[in-house]
Structure formats: structure tokens, C-alpha cells
């Protein structure tokens, strides 16, 4: 699944940092459009992508039985909540959702000063025997997902684990792939993908830009 090898010596430092793609606050949207940021997904496209993913989850899991959605903070949690609500609209019963902090399981902890932890909240029914769908905004190196798999391992033993992402931007560094993808976005390594969600950024959009040099 490795479409493109990252340049040697450039592997883990920046690209696999936790929200390299999403955490830094983008300049305000108006400025973003003019500052070299290109919108690659509009609010409608994000809405449709999430609806499609919700349908696909229902299809693959035979009506969403035993599904637990776990979002990876920050934006994965909001996406998980939206998917859970969507599943509720389509099937009548919303899927349980929660959040899974992966900080303590990251492989790049020693590369940066210690980070603040985020919330881990597992729905009361737990994860044992469930089909856990991990939800994140951007799939990049795959290292965050690896950390999430480890973190999940300490919480229990799911029957199966699947992965849903809003954007797959390629450049995997680990043998990991997503089961549900909102949009496949071919990117160059130096580019940055930013996901904005209404819940914390005031608007829905996915922006593509160049890393500030």
C-alpha cells in the first residue's frame, strides 16, 4: 500500500507527529483561501462522505450490530460522533461512540517534549467482543493508528477492529490501511492537510497547503 517512499531521513520527525496534519490551527479560513491553501473538500462533500461511510459501516457489519466507534482526539472524536448520529438516522439506533487517546502509546514520544494527554472515554458496554471502528481525520504515516491498536489492546479484546478516515493522504510508513475512506487525496510529502470541523474550528473544510518554510 506504500504508494511513495518518503525521502530517507525524513520519515518520522515531522510527518508522523500527532496532528501534523490537523493540530496546528490554520489561519482563519478567509486568509487560508488566499494564503496558498486550497479547499479540497467542501462542507457538502464532507457531509456526503460521512453519510457514505456510515452506510458502508452498516453494510459491512450487517446493520451495525456490535459496532463501537472510537475517535482519535481531537477531530476523530467529532467525526465518530457524527458517524454515530448518522448511523442512528439510518437505522433508528445510534451506535455507541467514544474517544481513544493514543499519546502514551506513540513511538515518537522521545522526539518532542512531553505532551498533554487527551481524553479516553469508552462507552459503558466496553469493547470486548465488539467491532471497533477507529475514526481519525487524516491517515498519513499510519503511526497514530498503530498506537491506537496498542492502546485498544489494553482496553479489552474487540472481535474486530476497522479504520475509518475522512482523508487518506498516502505516504504510509507501516502496513496499515483504512477500511472506510472519505476521500483519497494524493499529496506530496511537503504538503500539509488540514481538516476543519464546525465543532472546534467553526466551519467544515479540508484544506491542502504547503508546509511553512
Amino acid at each position: 500500500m506504500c504508494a511513495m517512499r518518503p525521502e530517507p531521513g525524513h520519515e518520522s520527525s515531522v510527518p508522523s507527529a500527532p496532528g501534523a496534519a490537523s493540530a496546528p490551527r490554520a489561519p482563519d479560513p478567509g486568509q487560508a483561501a488566499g494564503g496558498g491553501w486550497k479547499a479540497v473538500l467542501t462542507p457538502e462533500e464532507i457531509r456526503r462522505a460521512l453519510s457514505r461511510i456510515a452506510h458502508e459501516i452498516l453494510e459491512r457489519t450487517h446493520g451495525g450490530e456490535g459496532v463501537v466507534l472510537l475517535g482519535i482526539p481531537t477531530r476523530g472524536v467529532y467525526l465518530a460522533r457524527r458517524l454515530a448520529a448518522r448511523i442512528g438516522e439510518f437505522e433508528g439506533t445510534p451506535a455507541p461512540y467514544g474517544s481513544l487517546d493514543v499519546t502514551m502509546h506513540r513511538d515518537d514520544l522521545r522526539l518532542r517534549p512531553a505532551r498533554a494527554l487527551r481524553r479516553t472515554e469508552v462507552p459503558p458496554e466496553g469493547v470486548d467482543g465488539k467491532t471497533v471502528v477507529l475514526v481519525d481525520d487524516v491517515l498519513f504515516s499510519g503511526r497514530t493508528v498503530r498506537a491506537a491498536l496498542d492502546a485498544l489492546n489494553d482496553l479489552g479484546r474487540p472481535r474486530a477492529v476497522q479504520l475509518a478516515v475522512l482523508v487518506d493522504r498516502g505516504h504510509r510508513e507501516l502496513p496499515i490501511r483504512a477500511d472506510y475512506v472519505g476521500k483519497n487525496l494524493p499529496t506530496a510529502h511537503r504538503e500539509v492537510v488540514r481538516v476543519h470541523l464546525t465543532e472546534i474550528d467553526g466551519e467544515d473544510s479540508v484544506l491542502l497547503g504547503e508546509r511553512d518554510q
Partner: protein
Amino acid sequence: MNRHLISAADLSRDDAILILDTAAELASVAGRPIRKLPTLRGLTVVNCFYEDSTRTRTSFEAAAKRLSADVINFSAKGSSVAKGESLKDTALTLEAMGTDAVIIRHSASGAAHTLARWVTGSVVNAGDGTHEHPTQALLDAFTMRQRLVGDGERGRGMGLDGLRVTIVGDVLHSRVARSNVLLLTVLGAEVTLVAPPTLMPYAVETWPCKVSYDLDAELRKADVVMMLRVQQERMSAAYFPSIREYRRRYGLDAGRMALLPEHAIVMHPGPMNRGVEIAAEVADSPRSTIVAQVSNGVIVRMAVLYLLLGGAGEGAAA
């Protein structure tokens, strides 16, 4: 954050809140089937205890082990210290074995500060003489925030602004009181010290807190009352006429507890002298957070170890 945790004064308000928030997240780990995180795998933490201790040493040990660090326990009794080895030589020995953090308790004030000059790893002060015990202050602040600040969110991201804390007893010999005054003040609490005049430290008026000699008056307006242990092992002179008189004026019994506002909590850093500074019925009452303080101690120390050791050191490559 600094590389070491020697004094509560090393912590800014933001540092302190970061530690408390990290601890709040780590609290959920204690309720899981697997109470262990891989974060400090491969790191070595040495517990270096020159003074007797049960809860602090085991608390640090549990905290380090839950983060997967390797723990070496070293106590002065039955070690080369008994043969006359100096602190510096012990430090160099530990250093040569490759340790990433040293947790030190020592009867001399300033021991942790001195040790930090000799070792490359992090130093965490687990009590130095009558000087400081910063992790105790952090776990006390965490317990207060958990019980009294915010609802639902348990005060995440918040300080202890406006909380009235009364610390009662042997302030003179108490490193817990000193660290608490510094930390709680930074977090916005109003601290009042109550003690017999003989057990008030010299120059206490320069501390950022109020001083009173009338326990009953202070109890009526306290949100938190923290009883300190009468440290007879450090007392070389008669600081008060008799235990009975101390108990009557500065001990917390059920009658005095009734003066506290409805929501107020009773804390004690342990070990307690039941029947001296605190009556058994008070220690065992639902208002007492003494047991919660012990379990909070482990998660707060996990948070401290994670924040000191979990990332790359500032500037220096880890």
C-alpha cells in the same frame, strides 16, 4: 516544565494545571483491567530513600511500574550508606549504572537540590528534611480539585481559585505545609496556617499565606482543613506542654468537625497520629479524603514521571 521537580516553587500555574489534568486522564487507567502503559519502557527509575517511608516509596514505585519503567529501590538501611558512603558517591554510583530519574527522600533540607547537580537524569524530591515535598502538594491539590472544583468535568483545566484551605498543626517541621502553601497559592487558593506559636516557622509572615492561632474561628470558613502530623521524631525540645493540651487546642475531633461548612473536606498527608492531631472518628468520616489521597498519589506521581521523562528533554537530545 523543568527537568527536575525539587520544589513546588518550580511549577508555574500552567505547569501545575498540566500535571493535574494529566493525572485526571491517568485516573481512568486505574479502573482498567490492564493498569499499565508502555510509555516509560526501557527507562530506569531509582527510589533513593534515606528516611523511612511506606506510602511515598510504594506510591512512586507503583507509579513508575504502571508506566513500565524499571524500578530500583535503594534504602539507606542495609546499604553502603551504613558504611559511611556520602550522598555524592552514592549519586555517582547510581549515575554510572545508568538511571533516568532519581526519586530522593533525605533528612537534610536541600538534599534533592544538591543531588540534581551531580546526576544527568531527572531528580524528583520526595521530601527533604523540613523543606519540601512537592508531589504531596500536587496530590493534595488534585484531591481538592476533584472534590470541590467544577462539576462533571472534575475541574479539568482549572485551578483552585478562591478555595479557602486551612493547614493545621506542626507547620515548623512540615515539608508538606511548605510545598502546599507554595503550590496552592499559585493555583489561586487562600491558605491559612494555624499552629501553636512554637510550631510556626521563623519568618512565616513572608510566606504567601495568612497565619492564625484560633482554630475554631478558621474552621467556620474553611473549604479544606488539612491536619499535619505532629512530628515527634524531629522535635528535640518541648514545643507544647502535653499531647493532651495540644489535642484540646489544635486537634480535630468530631465537635470541631461540626464547625466546618457542609461541603468542607478533611485531609491528612499521613501517617496519622490518631488521637493526637486527628480523632479516629474524624479520620474515618465520609468527609475525610485520607484514603483518596493515597490512590491519587499514585496517579499524580505517574503524571509527574510522564511529564519529566516521557518526552524529549528541552534542548538536550534524550
